[in-house]
């Protein structure tokens, strides 16, 4: 028996989540060491640029101090561990399999040592398309990071494709 083709993956539960803001927790204060270690990891095995770890050098830059690499994740190592991530395989059923549909970032204020970043995310957009893998649902999540002064730091839009 062939499986009936689904007409939509957008359940009422998903519809109800669109546009609803989910305030996350604030980050721990960003430390110089967090920035230095991130920079070392992403430049390994070369020495990272001094603006990420040498205070005196960074003071002379246009940033007047150390800044974080723009792509740095400041929400790592929470004591309360998040639930398991979504698995790319899902349950194997149509609509539960997931592909990474890409990311978009807009950067505003730089992240500096001492900053405390707050995150706020929402399901911004849901749409469907027929593709070569059949029906595909695109979920776009928008996440804003704001610093302790209320300045917007980063806006991310990440797309997950369910098929």
């Amino acid at each position: 028996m062939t499986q009936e083709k689904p007409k939509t993956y957008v359940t009422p539960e998903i519809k109800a989540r669109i546009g609803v803001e989910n305030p996350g927790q604030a980050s721990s204060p960003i430390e110089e060491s967090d920035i230095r270690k991130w920079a070392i990891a992403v430049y390994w095995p070369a020495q990272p640029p001094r603006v990420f770890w040498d205070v005196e050098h960074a003071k002379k830059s246009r940033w007047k101090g150390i800044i974080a690499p723009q792509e740095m994740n400041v929400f790592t190592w929470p004591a309360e561990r998040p639930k398991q991530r979504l698995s790319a395989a899902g349950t194997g059923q149509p609509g539960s399999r997931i592909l990474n549909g890409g990311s978009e970032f807009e950067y505003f204020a730089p992240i500096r040592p001492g900053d405390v970043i707050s995150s706020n995310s929402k399901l911004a957009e849901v749409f469907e398309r027929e593709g070569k893998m059949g029906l595909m649902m695109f979920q776009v999540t928008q996440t804003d990071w704001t610093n302790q002064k209320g300045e917007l730091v980063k806006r991310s839009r990440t797309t997950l494709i369910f098929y």
Partner: protein
Amino acid sequence: MSNLTFASISEGQELATFQRTTDFMHWNRYAAVNDEFVQLHMDDDAGKKVGQKGAFGMGNLQVAYLHNLLRQWLGDDCWVKKFRCELRGMNFKNDTLTAKGKVLKKYEQGGEKLADVELWTENQNGQKLCPGSATVVIYS
């Protein structure tokens, strides 16, 4: 310091590449700073179980390499305004990953000098793994 100026940038210009041959030395360090301990990035058997040839590197490490490419070009002044990319391929152990870029357009907007750049990472076979683009500010 970068001696780059807005005047010296030309559309179509290719950026100097940023290259890494990656293995667990890179991935484990990235796992540590990004708190990203996933079997698929740590264990060849886990990769094989999902039909891959082994463990593979984090997609976000490729995102970082594309930022490194821009920083290598613009120096300490580097400021990325916008960035987008799609992860299309995996970075396996001992692959040589090259981040490449090409200036699409330079222009002034809202009092800022900007350049749009096409970006991607590719492996040693020339397969594009993470294509994307960015808009950067040129301060000089």
